[in-house]
């Protein structure tokens, strides 16, 4: 599998949908090597020395930004953080103007988070840098899916033939969209479970199985990804109340008891305890979720390394 690293040709990482299974395997395999670096005393290798990475966050995200920043630093790239609160966006400058301004500093990689779906296909036209998608609107969050797959592979030793269940606000979730494509590329079956108001239109074409009956699909799951539910979804259009959501979709003690023994529960974080997962299960599921954060760092080091080393 490692030999495949030589076949990486992508300039950007914008989505999982257009990555091949082989390309995902390259990232996961590299991430294994990179994970070891974080266990060293000197947690730094000179791989991207002299390269400049701009973390461009048009939407707040301390966790993802920190993960990318640390990943960049551990492979010796110079990192600058640019977030919309400290930016000139408030002064009427457009997103594109910002990219063009930053382009003048000749960055090698731009890590971008933005609240507009599919925006990076547009923004890539304005920079020579490689772009890594750190979440674009409701579209994709590829590094999150890669770290989910990495974690699953680490624990389950394979990504093939699994029953992956994604529960929650699928409609607004970029994490779901990335994972649905990612896991299916390895021949795993993906089921998405949400109230019909939070399932995307005509989504059967994605290959995922759509359902609103959590209790029916729970017992078969090898992996469950619980999505964060935004509190503002309640009241009106999507959910009557969070209470009602908890009733039908939360991981309760009772539902937990019906899971396969080795069922792995993941959550992209931050968790609303007692909404997605009851807090009495904290000691059972939290360690795995923290493992995800550690793996996120390795996966992001791998992606930055792949797009940051020059191709001829």
């Amino acid at each position, binding site marked *: 599998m*490692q*030999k495949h*690293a*030589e*076949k*990486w040709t992508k300039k950007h990482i914008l989505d999982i949908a257009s990555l091949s299974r082989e390309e995902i395997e390259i990232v996961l395999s*590299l991430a*294994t*090597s*990179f994970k*070891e*670096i974080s266990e*060293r*005393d*000197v947690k*730094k*290798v*000179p*791989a*991207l020395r*002299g*390269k400049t990475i701009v973390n461009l966050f048009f939407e707040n995200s301390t966790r993802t930004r920190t993960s990318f920043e640390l990943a960049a630093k551990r*492979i010796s790239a110079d990192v600058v953080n640019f977030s919309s609160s400290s930016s000139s966006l408030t002064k009427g400058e457009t997103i594109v103007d910002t990219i063009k301004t930053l382009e003048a500093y000749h960055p090698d990689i731009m890590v971008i988070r933005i609240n507009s779906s599919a925006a990076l296909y547009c923004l890539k036209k304005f920079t020579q840098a490689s772009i890594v998608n750190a979440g674009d609107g409701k579209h994709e969050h590829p590094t999150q899916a890669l770290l989910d797959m990495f974690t699953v592979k680490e624990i389950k030793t394979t990504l093939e033939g699994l029953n992956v269940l994604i529960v929650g606000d699928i409609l607004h979730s970029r994490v779901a969209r990335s994972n649905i494509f990612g896991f299916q590329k390895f021949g795993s079956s993906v089921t998405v479970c949400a109230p019909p108001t939070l399932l995307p239109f005509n989504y059967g074409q994605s290959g995922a199985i759509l359902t609103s009956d959590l209790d029916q699909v729970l017992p078969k799951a090898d992996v469950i990804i619980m999505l964060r539910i935004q509190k503002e979804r309640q009241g009106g259009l999507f959910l009557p109340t969070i209470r009602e959501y908890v009733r039908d979709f939360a991981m309760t003690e009772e539902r937990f008891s019906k899971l396969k023994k080795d069922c792995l529960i993941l959550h992209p974080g931050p968790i609303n305890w007692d909404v997605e997962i009851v807090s009495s299960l904290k000691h059972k599921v939290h360690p795995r979720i923290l493992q995800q954060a550690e793996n996120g760092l390795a996966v992001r080091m791998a992606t930055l*390394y*792949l797009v*940051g*080393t*020059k*191709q*001829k």
Partner: protein
Amino acid sequence: MKESKRILTAEDIKRVLSRLTHQIIERNPDPQELMLIGIQTRGVYLAERIQQLIQEIEKVPVSLGVLDITLYRDDLTTIGPKPVVRETKIAEDINNKVVILIDDVLFTGRTVRAALDEIMDFGRPKRVELLVLIDRGHRELPIRADFVGKNIPTSKQEIVEVKLMEADKIDEVMVTIQDHSQD
């Protein structure tokens, strides 16, 4: 057209490794101070064999580390395609150890430079010594080996290929001459 010549046979390699092992022991009377570090990938197999040999002679465990120098290469951001990043594993404390850095072929010296930089990031060894199976010349950096299996004067066009059972199902060292009139 290619012309290959066998420089070392399996038997030769065995003898060479035995000699190198004795040289290491001779120079380092306390084997517990030693740490063998093999450079991925064939340096690792050589290190494992030498570890075995030392332990057979001295009857004490000798520590072993594995080093992948890819991320320390000086040409990483200019070469393509991307080199594979393999495992690095230095489980034990490297401080005050005598590190025997082990690789199959010493050529330009750039790999060794990268390996030294990486080792320093793991700590401050007492001393680092370099062991190579083949020294083929053409150094580009001021680096020399402390233990050499065999010196083979080569031209830059020649390819030195070390094959080991662990990866190649045979022990031998070949030198291949590229015939440029056919290129």
